[in-house]
């Protein structure tokens, strides 16, 4: 790096720190100031609505667009691939390895981080440099509309955000009313094949399964994404196997279960696929996955009822 570059960068840094100091001296009561509490229960005060937002998680990017704040996002992290418009935005590294200098140089007035994805040191660093940092951590489906509303507040697009939030709430309620209390379907959700990974009840996907009247056969395991073996699945004998894989296509490994006809799901041909973007990301699109899963599990439910009927009539 040549000296002139270094000087410029130092100057820039000073400028940004100065801006931060200025921010912190303003009182929350000041006109136009916005106050929100993030998922870490920290109160954040913005002197005015955010106009230059940087998203540090693919799911945050998506929620910002859903909240109507898409045009205020100036940069995102890698793999922010939805909606289409987000792909064109500048990148500030992967969510585990943030390019702090690049973030600074884009002069954001709000950075939205992700507790379980970003390095806490990096977020602290950004705060020290005077940038307002809002941190998300979605543990429950119900948090998604709340987050939308808060994003709307911060970006001054509350109306759009509230509309999206309300729609999310009503669709979710509707699904729950329709499916949650129907006959329980035992579900094995397969995150990956090698290694064989599933989810426990702490995972958001577990809530989607329960909303659809399913029961995750590995809900009680200790880790959020436990590694298991084939035998465990044979023993659990799920009524349906649901997998997401990596892309928009049904993973080939889902068919490896066909070797095991003793599993009810295999016997009844209940191997279901949901695109990962529709269920593994904590965004509005999770409802697409939920709707699809509910239909799939309902199909399983019907088949199960039929076979019980058949057995009943055979006796």
């Amino acid at each position, binding site marked *: 790096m040549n000296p002139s570059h270094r000087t410029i960068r130092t100057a820039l840094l000073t400028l940004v720190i100065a801006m931060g100091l200025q921010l912190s001296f303003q009182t929350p009561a000041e006109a136009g100031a916005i106050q929100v509490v993030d998922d870490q229960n920290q109160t954040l005060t913005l002197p005015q609505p955010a106009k230059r937002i940087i998203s540090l998680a693919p799911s945050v990017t998506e929620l910002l667009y859903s909240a109507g704040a898409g045009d205020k996002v100036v940069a995102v992290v890698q793999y922010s691939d939805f909606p289409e418009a987000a792909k064109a935005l500048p990148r500030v590294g992967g969510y585990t390895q943030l390019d702090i200098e690049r973030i600074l140089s884009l002069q954001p007035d709000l950075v939205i981080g992700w507790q379980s994805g970003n390095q806490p040191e990096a977020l602290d660093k950004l705060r020290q440099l005077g940038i307002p940092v809002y941190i998300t951590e979605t543990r429950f489906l119900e948090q998604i509309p709340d987050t939308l509303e808060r994003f709307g507040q911060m970006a001054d697009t509350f109306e759009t955000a509230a509309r999206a939030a309300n729609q999310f709430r009503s669709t979710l309620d509707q699904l729950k009313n329709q499916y949650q209390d129907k006959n329980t379907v035992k579900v094995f959700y397969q995150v990956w094949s090698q*290694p064989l990974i599933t989810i426990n009840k702490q995972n958001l996907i577990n809530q989607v399964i329960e909303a659809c009247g399913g029961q995750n056969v*590995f809900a009680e395991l*200790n880790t959020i994404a436990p590694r298991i073996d084939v035998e465990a699945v044979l023993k659990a004998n799920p009524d349906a196997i649901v997998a997401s894989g990596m892309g928009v296509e049904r993973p*080939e490994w889902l068919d490896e279960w066909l070797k095991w006809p003793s599993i009810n799901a295999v016997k009844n041909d209940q191997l279901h696929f949901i695109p990962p973007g529709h269920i593994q990301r904590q965004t509005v699109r999770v409802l697409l996955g939920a709707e699809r899963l509910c239909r799939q599990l309902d199909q399983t439910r019907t088949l199960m009822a039929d076979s019980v009927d058949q057995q009943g009539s055979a006796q």
Partner: protein
Amino acid sequence: MTTQSLETSRSYSQQQKLKVFLLLGGLALACIASLVLALLTGSIKVTVGELWQLIQFQLGLSDQPANTLSATVVTELRLPRALSALVVGAELALAGCLMQVLLRNPLADPYVLGVSGGAAVGALLSIMAGLGSFWVSGSAFVGALTNLLLVFGLSHASGVWSPSRLLLTGVVTAAGWGAIISFMLSIGEDNQLRGMLFWLMGDLSRASLPGWHGLFLLMSLALSALLARPLNMMLRGELQAKALGVAVYPLQITLYLLASVLTASAVTQAGSVGFLGLVVPHILRLSIGSDHRLLLPATALAGACLLLLADTLARTLIAPQQLPVGVITAFIGVPVFLWVLQKSNRGTV
């Protein structure tokens, strides 16, 4: 000179042969016991009776097939995995033992010359390209062979060849692979990362029936029986071995190739399962001495047995959750090694 010492020494070769018989027999029995244990344990309950019935049926002694689910679980899941564990364990322990003599360094393990690094880069590339497990294994093997040729060529490049030169070349090449692996991990996508890390940790869950790997192991054991006595000579130094009539350079080349290909075969099946190749040869050296005619087969059997036990524990200890087998090999190996070291009166390792 006392008559007593003459008597004890007189029986030396009989003693050795008895030792061979007892030790190898005992270890073989331990392997069989571990195999039975591995076939009996798991999430699905399989009783001894069912297993016995299944064995009889498979051997054609009985027409009565066992309970179908337990039968399939045993033949399709547990048996291939258990046999792989035996083969991989034997290969790694044997390779470690050979590598230690070749490099005349007690700290050498099968991975020290970068074979696993080359294999890992191959496997990770395939995983990143989204290819299936056949391609992952295949490219791991190609990676391992690439490393073999690369290290061999580089250590010969200047014309002067010595084990220490080989060691340096290998260690630096391994570090190079390590850097490439870190780079690939840092640019990998989340879902791929899981598979990549999993491969690097070493695991037997994707293993199928060992097939040609098993055949190769048997051939290597036969070859190592030929090498055993010259290897004993090598322990006293290259020149001493040469003075006693060992063709040192051809022997070193054979050792290098054999140890590398054994490691390549093991890594292809199970990723880099750590620790086994370092500790098993040492435990045996400390407890039975350095006669390779006994040491090599004993090491192979002990490695096989240890990895199978470790893998059975890895998949059942906190079942249905799985542990990486390398963690268990270390948990078993470290205390056993330290205990043997404390007890040993053989001193220097």
